């Protein structure tokens, strides 16, 4: 699991994963809430307090290689454009494929 620090490198890794799964395998993208905890919650007294601010963990894998990225509120709000780009990518490649099969 590679946790990428910059959003741009995450996007380029994601693009690579899209290309790798072109002919076979699948691409999985997961999003979940992440509170900064690195260890599980202890049953008695919680020493691993969450940092309080909520983030969003994004993971992408092709079943072999994993990349992940922790997005903060500011990043998400400022990069909705970037998200659109990656989703459109699916649309484009999909569109091409359906045209080819017609």
């Amino acid at each position, binding site marked *: 699991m590679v946790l990428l620090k910059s959003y741009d490198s995450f996007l380029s890794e994601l693009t690579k994963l*899209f290309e790798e*799964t*072109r*002919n*076979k*395998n*699948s*691409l*999985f*993208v*997961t*999003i*979940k*809430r*992440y*509170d900064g905890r690195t260890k599980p919650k202890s049953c008695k007294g919680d020493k691993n307090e969450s940092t309080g601010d*909520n*983030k*969003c963990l994004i993971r992408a894998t092709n079943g072999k290689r994993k990349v992940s990225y922790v*997005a*903060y*509120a500011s990043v*998400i*709000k400022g990069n*909705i454009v970037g*998200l*659109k780009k990656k*989703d*459109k990518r*699916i*649309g484009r*490649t*999909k*569109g091409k*494929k*359906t045209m080819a099969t017609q």
Partner: protein
Amino acid sequence: MTYLDTWEEFAAASESLYQSDAVNFRFVWKYRHSDGKLIAKATNNKVCLKYRTDQIQDVKKLEKLSSTLMRLMVSK
């Protein structure tokens, strides 16, 4: 595991699933280019909702739901 019939149903159910258990909730989509299939899944480890599609217009809906969920995750 339940496959829902319409995206609207799936989106509404996913959002209420997130509201009911935000900590354990995760949202996954799987894209299989070779088969031209997209499967979206929302789960909290107890309830699992899925939606399967091969239609291009669902990508836009997926994008909308993802950003809604991400906004919910970072807010509060």
